[in-house]
Structure formats: C-alpha cells, structure tokens
C-alpha cells in the first residue's frame, strides 16, 4: 500500500465510519424494521415470555383446547415430585410427606384451599396452619404473570403446568406469550388494505402539487423575473424579505403564522375592528387548513427557486436585452423569448428537488396543523412520523411507521440516483494528478 493510499483511507476513515453507522445503516434498517411488529407494546430491545390475561384471550380457540387455556389461566396445585422434593428440602416431617404422596400423589387441585383441606385431613399433619399453608405454596403450578427470559425455560415451565400439551399448542402458546417483537409481513398488507392510505396519498399529491406549482416554482419564478426589472435597492429589499423565512428557525417561523391566524391572532384583531366574530383561521375548516399549510411551506420554498432562477437570469448576457429593447420588444416578450428559454434546466432542477423535499418533509405541517382538523391535512411523511414516533394514543407502532417510511426511502434512493445521472459524473471524478 502506498503512502498516498494510506493517507487517503486514513482521511476517509472517520467519514466512512460515521456515515455507515448513522446514515447507511438507517437506510437498510428502515427496510428491516418494516418487517417487524415493533411497537410500544413489544419494546425495542426484545422481550420476555409471559402468560397474561390478554395473551390467554388471544389464544386461538381452534388450535388450543379449552381445558389447556383453563389450566394456564388458573393457579393449579399439583402434588408432584418437585413439590415433594421441596418439602423434604424444607425439612418437613417425612411421615407427612410420605402420606401425602401416597394418598394424593399426582392429584390436581384447582384451588389452594382444597389442597390445604386435603393436607389437614392427613394423619401426620403438622400442627401449625402456617406450615401447612407454606407446604401448599410449594405445589402451586402457575405460569400466570411470571417472566421468563429464555424460551427454553418457558417451554419447560409450560410442560410442567400442562402435562399433555401437543406440539402445535406449545408453538402457538410460546408465540402468543412472547412480549418482544417478531418478524412479520403484516405491515405491508395492512398498508395496502387500510382505506386511510388512499386518502393520505391524495392529500400528499394535492399538497406537493399545489405548493410546487403556486410557490416553489410559480411564485419563485415571479419573484426572480420581477425583481430583475426593479431598481437595485427595491429588488434587494424584496429578496431579503422573501429570504427571511428560510433563515428563520422553523419553530419561530410557524409561530408567526399562528400569531397571524389563531383565535386571538392578528387577523381576528383587525377583523374585530369591523365587528367580525373571531375564529381560528388555521384550523376551523379543511379548506383554510390547506390554505395555511400551502402558504407556510410555499413562503419558505419560494426563496430557493428565487435564488437559483435569479442567478440564472443574471448569467444571461446583457446585450441580449439591449438588442431586444432596441427592436421594441415589450417586457413580456423579453421574458417569453429571452429569460424563459434560459431557465429550462434550473426549472427542471428546482421542480425535481423540491418535489422530493416536499414529499419527505413534514416539519412545517407538524408545527402548524399537525395534520388537522381531524386528519384532513395528513400527508404521507407526517403520517409515518405520527404512527411511529408521536401520537396522542401513545401506542407508537415503530414497525408500521418504518413501513410507511420505507416507501419514502425508496423514492429518495431512486431520486438521488437520478440526480447522480444528471450531474456530469465523469468530470467530477477526474483522476488526481500527483502520482507517488
């Protein structure tokens, strides 16, 4: 390995490590997580085996016999060798143990009281009731609400509790009792069959389309073209105004819109002067909510197009405009025949880039309407976020959310590969010129 190669890999090392761990791994793991049923209920780092009320209710009636479920649900008292052994270890009267084994060996009692009565009837019973109760406890065979970390230990305990368990029943019960996450494909079928999915797709297309057309491309173009005709001072003023949303922290920017639109906000204060009743303009109707979602995103988005289009227009040689003016071309004709033809590539770039950006970002909607009122402004990316990371119900479905995110990740990968094609890649990777 040459000196140069060593230095190169050394210089790349930290970047590779951090990008692989926190950038590439999440891409791949989004795919992995989408095949799990991970949620608040299953936890993230694995679970335990435990028979609970809800596990018993979930056991399928056609695969597990009713009496198995009964014996799992109730504490049973089985006079078995393990219990007798425990009594010997406690140092109880051997005669008592002997008699118990002889008269009640392998017998199953459904309650502790019954076993206690049976013990009291024995000839060699201990005098103390407390000792008898202690002995009864040694025969309690119940799985209810006990945690098992290992599957093997749980299966063993299961076989102790229910003697005649079939193999199929064992598999079904172990599966149901596991509280951790498991692999599944149900997220995809659920996503496909849920009616809500269709509505969210329609919302997303409407949101991306309208914001893009009206602001990120449309108004950005208007800003870039009109400011080229204004005196320098005025155009700088307008560009600065429209750049403010981009440099403002998102939380603050959306706060300003809330101040404008809420019940106690500025619009109502102004309208109140004319005797109009106050309302929450951002959230009172679906239409208003959409107007604000598009305005909030559009006012930020317009500035990127504005910058790119402006610099493209500035790159047009000035004599072209002078010649056009001498020939008597109107402003509109200058725009139509000189400026717009030069903006084809910037328009294409801004459109594709902003489509991807609008499709995947949910920050401004989350901060303004949170998808409301109801879920009328819920878009795909926000829906994924709320499913997995934040909702009022508190049941976070990481697996299902990852499935929703996977769709966006796939679109993102496809789009960024497309960007790679659009760049002149060969030129960018021309070989270094110092050879050692």
């Amino acid at each position, binding site marked *: 390995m040459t000196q140069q*190669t060593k230095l*190169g*890999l050394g210089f*790349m090392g*930290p970047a590779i490590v*951090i*990008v692989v761990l*926190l950038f590439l791994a*999440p891409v791949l793991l989004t795919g992995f*997580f989408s095949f799990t049923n991970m949620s608040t209920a299953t936890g993230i*780092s694995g679970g335990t085996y435990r028979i609970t009320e809800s596990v018993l209710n979930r056991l399928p009636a056609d695969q597990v016999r009713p009496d198995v479920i009964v014996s799992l649900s109730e504490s049973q008292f089985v006079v078995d060798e393990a219990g007798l052994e425990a009594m010997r270890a406690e140092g109880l009267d051997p005669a008592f143990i002997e008699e118990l084994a002889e008269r009640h060996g392998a017998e199953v009692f459904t309650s502790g009281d019954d076993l206690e009565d049976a013990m009291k009837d024995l000839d060699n019973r201990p005098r103390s009731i407390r000792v008898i109760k202690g002995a009864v406890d040694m025969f309690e065979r119940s799985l209810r609400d006990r945690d098992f970390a290992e599957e093997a230990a749980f299966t063993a305990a299961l076989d102790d509790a229910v003697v005649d368990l079939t193999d199929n029943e064992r598999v079904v019960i172990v599966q149901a009792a596991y509280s951790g996450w498991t692999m599944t494909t149900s997220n995809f079928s659920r996503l496909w069959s849920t009616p809500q999915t269709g509505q969210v797709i329609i919302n997303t297309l409407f949101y991306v389309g309208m914001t893009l057309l009206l602001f990120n491309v449309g108004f950005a173009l208007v800003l870039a073209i*009109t400011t080229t*005709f*204004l005196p320098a001072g*005025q155009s700088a003023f*307008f560009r600065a*105004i*429209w750049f403010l*949303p*981009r*440099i403002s*922290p*998102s*939380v*603050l920017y959306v*706060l*300003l*819109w809330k*101040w404008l639109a809420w019940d*106690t906000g500025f619009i109502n*204060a102004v309208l109140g*002067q004319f005797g109009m009743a106050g309302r929450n303009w951002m959230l009172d109707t679906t239409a208003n909510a959409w107007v604000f979602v598009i305005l909030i995103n559009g006012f*930020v*988005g317009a500035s*990127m197009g504005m910058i790119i289009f402006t610099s493209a227009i500035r790159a047009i040689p*000035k004599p072209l405009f002078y010649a056009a003016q001498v020939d008597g071309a109107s*402003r509109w004709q200058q725009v139509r025949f000189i400026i717009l033809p030069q903006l084809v590539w910037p328009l294409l770039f801004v459109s594709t880039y902003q489509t991807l*950006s609008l499709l*995947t*970002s949910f*920050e401004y909607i989350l901060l303004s309407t949170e998808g409301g009122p109801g879920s009328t402004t819920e878009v795909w*990316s926000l829906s*994924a*976020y709320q499913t*997995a*990371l934040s909702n009022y119900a508190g049941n976070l479905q990481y697996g299902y959310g990852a499935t929703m*995110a996977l769709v*966006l990740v796939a679109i*993102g*990968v496809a*789009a*960024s590969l497309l*960007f*790679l094609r659009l*760049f002149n890649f060969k030129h*960018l*990777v021309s*070989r270094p010129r*110092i050879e*050692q």
Partner: protein
Amino acid sequence: MEDGKRTWHIATILGIASVPLIIMYLFLVIDTVTDTTAGSPIPDRFTFEHWRFLWQRIDGRQSIWLVTMNTFIFAASTTVLVLAISSTAAYALSRLNMPFRRFFLAGILVLHGFPTITLIIAIFLILNMIGLYNTLIGVILVKAALELPLGIWIMKGFYDSVPWEIEMAGIQDGASRFMVWRVLVLPQVAPGILALGVFSFLAGWSEYILPQVLAPNANVQVLSVYLAGLIADDLNPDFNLFKSVGLFYMVPVVIFYLFFQKHLMNIYGGGTKG
C-alpha cells in the same frame, strides 16, 4: 435590468404579496417590548415584562440559559465534527489516488441528494438500541452524520479549485502529502471552511425534528424544542412571550447572516429546506 420604463406597478404587486411577511417580522420585534389591549391590532404601551424568561423560569421549565447552553453545545459540536471530518475526507476524494475513489464519490453524491428526514424512525430505534437515546451526544452524532455528505461535497468543490502547482511545489521540496495538505492546501480552502462552518452552526442552531425526537428530555433540551413545548402546552397563548423567546433564539442567526451573507448564499442556493 433597469430599462427606464415605469416599475411602480411591479413594486406594488410584490409589495402586496409580501404584506404577510412584513407584518409578521415587524410585529415579531415590536411585540416583544409592547403590550396590546385585547381585541386591538395596535400595541399601546411599552413593557419589558415579556423578556422575564431571561431571569425567571416559565411554568417550571428549564432555565433559558441551560437550554441556550445545550443549543450552543449541540450546534458547535456538530460544526466541529462536520468540519474535521469533511475537510479531510473531501481532500482525499479531491486529490488522493486510492482504491474505491469513484465508488466513494458516487456514494457521497447519492447521499447528498437523499432526503435524510425519512430515516428518523430507524435512527430513533438505533439510538434506543445502543443507549444514546435522550443524550446530546447521540443527537450530535446523528446531525453531523446527516450533514456530512453536503459538507464533503462542498469542501471537495473548494479543494478542486486549488491549483495543483501549489502541491507539486510542496512535493518537489520534499514534504509529505500530509504536510502539503496541512501547511499548503488547508489555508487555501479557508473560505470554504468558514462557509461550511457557519452553515453547519446555523443548521444545528435551527434544527427541530432531530432533538425533538431523539433527545426530548428536559436536561438536554435545545431552544427549538423549548419554544415548541412552550407553544404546544398553552391553551391561552401568550404570543408576546413566545415571540420574545423566539427573537432571543433568532438573534444569533440574524447576526451570522449579516456577517457571512455572501458565504451562506452559495450553500443556501443548493437548498436544504422545503
């Protein structure tokens, strides 16, 4: 493109379209030092009451200074990480012959265009599994990782424009490639380091979703999460207070922007926000 024709109608139309922005940002400043009688749009008296968050805690929340400190640590650490890693990696990509160079470059380019926010769910789960959930370190590492492709790409652009002759001369004089980079090349890309540094700092300072999801705990809270929490919990919103906190939060951004406008425009033009 002044062409001697009248422009007042263009200015008027733009002015009308800009009214919401002008009102919002004007009142952002005015409302922090005034009070307004309920139901009136016009403030009618001065007060410094809305800045009380500077010397007392609001509704049992963290002290604003601890939160500001967290925000600074978060933004500064991210910046240092991004600068250190991308200034070396970009040099390797720009100037050094090494195996997989084309592959690395293509990878950086693809990641550069990739919408990182879609990874938030997987990142949340990963941080939980490796025990970095609810720590500043975790969210700093994630933010730096997500900024890296952009950072490396920008720095590579700056390295590409450094004349080869400088390095050739260094090599001729017997310096190692490392010395050449440190002593001769690095000073040449100082403007790039400055631009990327300012950009990373502002990106960290303004970041909301990552700290909100990955480190919501009160002890590691940053200003964006603090302000969002203040707004979300209030049924009877005190917009003057929110705006004062907001202005306090935005002041460093404005200062940075005024001083480094030219540097930043290059990067913002590439676009990182919707």
